[in-house]
């Protein structure tokens, strides 16, 4: 479902003497449907960079990133937009929403964007928020005022609202307590069971051991010639 081949990435800092920073080379990995692959490596080794290249907000220098039938590295913006609507989900570490929008709407939005009737979308959002222990009295408030852990759970609910065939999870259990962490791991297990291909970053080793079928060390993708 997700296949990365010979992927390379560098940053050119035009405003700092046009310094070129090669950050990744020869990256190769794949994730099959129903499989969860964890990325490991020290902080700054390129785990998030790799995730963002799959998501499409970082450009690849060369190589291939196939998600479903689309090569994200070559795709036009609107193809990536289509991919993100129906195929590829992403739970990032940060919640970025329009202030003032109620939590329930934030969670339902991916469904609304797909044309799901509003009441159905809200029902689905409500059931996820309930599972993730967000009290109902908060649903009509904007999540921008929530604690870090609450925001993270809203973000997860939003990411799991639609059954994407492929999912990117960036530290989904960080800053969660044991109870909620377990709920998230359940959600991941359910997604795997329905055949989703998942690429994730999990700092929590226990969590990683529980859901990941394999791990890939991104240090193997560090360019050989240091900049």
């Amino acid at each position, binding site marked *: 479902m997700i296949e990365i081949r010979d992927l390379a990435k560098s940053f050119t800092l035009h405003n700092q003497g*046009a310094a070129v920073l090669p950050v990744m080379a020869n990256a190769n990995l794949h994730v099959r449907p129903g499989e969860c692959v964890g990325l490991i490596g020290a902080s700054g080794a390129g785990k998030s960079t790799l995730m963002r290249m799959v998501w499409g*907000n*970082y*450009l690849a220098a060369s190589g291939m990133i196939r998600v479903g039938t689309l090569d994200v590295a070559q795709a036009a913006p609107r193809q990536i*937009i289509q991919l993100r609507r129906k195929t590829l989900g992403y739970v990032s570490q940060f919640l*970025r929403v329009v*202030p*003032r929008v109620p939590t329930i709407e934030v969670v339902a*939005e991916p469904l609304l964007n797909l044309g799901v009737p509003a009441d159905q979308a809200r029902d689905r959002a409500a059931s996820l928020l309930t599972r993730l222990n967000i009290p109902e009295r908060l649903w009509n408030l904007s999540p921008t005022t929530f604690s870090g852990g609450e925001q993270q759970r809203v973000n997860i609910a939003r990411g799991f609202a639609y059954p994407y065939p492929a999912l990117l999870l960036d530290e989904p259990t960080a800053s969660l307590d044991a109870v909620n962490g377990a709920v998230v791991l359940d959600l991941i297990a359910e997604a795997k069971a329905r055949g989703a291909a998942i690429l994730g970053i999990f700092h929590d080793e226990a969590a990683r051991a529980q859901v990941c079928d394999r791990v890939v060390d991104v240090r193997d993708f560090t360019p050989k010639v240091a900049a």
Partner: protein
Amino acid sequence: MGMLNLNLTAETDQPLLSVQGLTKRYGARIGCADVSFDLFPGEVLGIVGESGSGKSTLLSCLAGHMPPDQGSVIFQTAQGPRDTVTMAEADRRRMARTDWAFVHQNPRDGLRMGVSAGGNVGERLMAIGARHYGDIRDKAIDWLGRVEIAADRIDDRPRAFSGGMQQRLQIARNLVTGPRLVFMDEPTGGLDVSVQARLLDLLRGLVRDMGLSAIIVTHDLAVVRLLADRLMVMKSGHVVEQGLTDQVLDDPQHAYTQLLVSSVLQV
């Protein structure tokens, strides 16, 4: 996480608007040069750049407010693709009040300040032949509601409204005829931050529910982050970079875009 306001119509392969080689000069000075892009149904395109970068000139040329020196702006009309640059003025103006909409930065430029809120909303309906007062009024009330203006303000003039309400009224006035393409020039400029947020939310909902395509000119990167699917960065009249909004903002390739993104506190 970037948010996408795509409607199902986005799957068509036919661009709603296809711009090729659009150029406008002011004597020897360049307004905008050789701008080309396609806009697909349901897509929101952001155009960013600093003052004088040519983004407003480009918007004026696109919307037919100013004739470009070169290039074409091909719009998918009900009768098929037509170049709006060469089209007869009568047709272009008819299109401007049916299929198109234009939201000005300053509501005073887009509203009739001496006419009631209901009259402002009803004008486009009457312009396309509505002749039933009761129906016009019902539609105006419906649209005031959609932009969160109480129905009992229908007979008040816009000058009695706050800046945010005026801007929402301008949006209602523009969208009442169900346009397919909306041009917006700094729609949230000049508004308080909290009012901006409310307006952004409203715009996102309308874009989604009506399947609108939109071209938004702004210098506010936070606005495009939340509203635009795609981004075009302009400098000195030229498009220096374009792509997916979060890609351009998170991994800018051009020196100017990098400067622009790094100059903002947090987007």
